[in-house]
């Protein structure tokens, strides 16, 4: 019973992660990373990771529900595409 409850609580995270990958693909991010040394963000990495971390932080502050998951899942890939490489500059 407890295990199933944990999975149910994780549904919000699942929706956010899947949505961030889908939106990342739709806005033209590369699906997979180019190589092991590529700094260019892609839909599968690090978009869902940052989305999940953001959801945990939001849960700590105000709590989460499905609507918040959808908003974060849509906003994360947009912010990553436009701001990640400015926030963490690529070092050659």
């Amino acid at each position, binding site marked *: 019973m407890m*295990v199933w409850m*944990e999975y149910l609580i*994780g549904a919000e*995270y699942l929706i956010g992660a899947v949505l961030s990958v889908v939106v990342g693909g739709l806005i033209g991010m590369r699906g997979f*990373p180019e190589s*092991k*040394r*590529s*700094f260019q963000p892609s839909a599968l*990495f*690090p978009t869902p*990771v*940052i989305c*999940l*971390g*953001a*959801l*945990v*932080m939001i*849960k700590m502050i105000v709590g989460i529900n499905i609507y918040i998951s959808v908003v974060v899942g849509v906003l994360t890939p947009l912010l990553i595409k436009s701001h990640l490489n400015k926030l*963490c500059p690529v*070092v050659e």
Partner: protein
Amino acid sequence: MIEKIVVAAVVCWINFVMVDVLIGGLPEVPGVRGAKHIAHAIRNYGGNLNGGYMMGNIVCSPDASAGTLLASSCYYAFGSWEGGLLAATVVYFGNRICADPGYAGTTGTLTTTALIFIFSHFGFSPANFVAGMVLAIVTIQGLHHKYSSKILGSLARKMGTIEG
């Protein structure tokens, strides 16, 4: 208690070495100049250059070993797997600050979170994994650089990450 820590140490060791070698490709090239200097110092000491690259990369940026330790600590602090997710984000930004693309560290954090979640159903606590990871990293970075670099180099060769 002791046997749980030993089992957790073995699990952590396998997890971080596999992720670092296969996903991060740490024994292939030094990610930053500091890792190169460490690798050459280890080779001069009689060790293996590729194992030295991996040990240098472990020192110079948060790789899967740091990810494993942070995932265990955050899982312990949060009391649930959500801590591991937050740790993955923190490790990713830590990697980017250290001029590392972050594949090894972030993947290692997520795999550790999954492993702790699975092992928690068999009576293991995240605290066992914190202690286990400290023991695991001591075997690589703390006991004997010459032999640990040779072990890492031969493991990377057997897994096909490096040639020769």
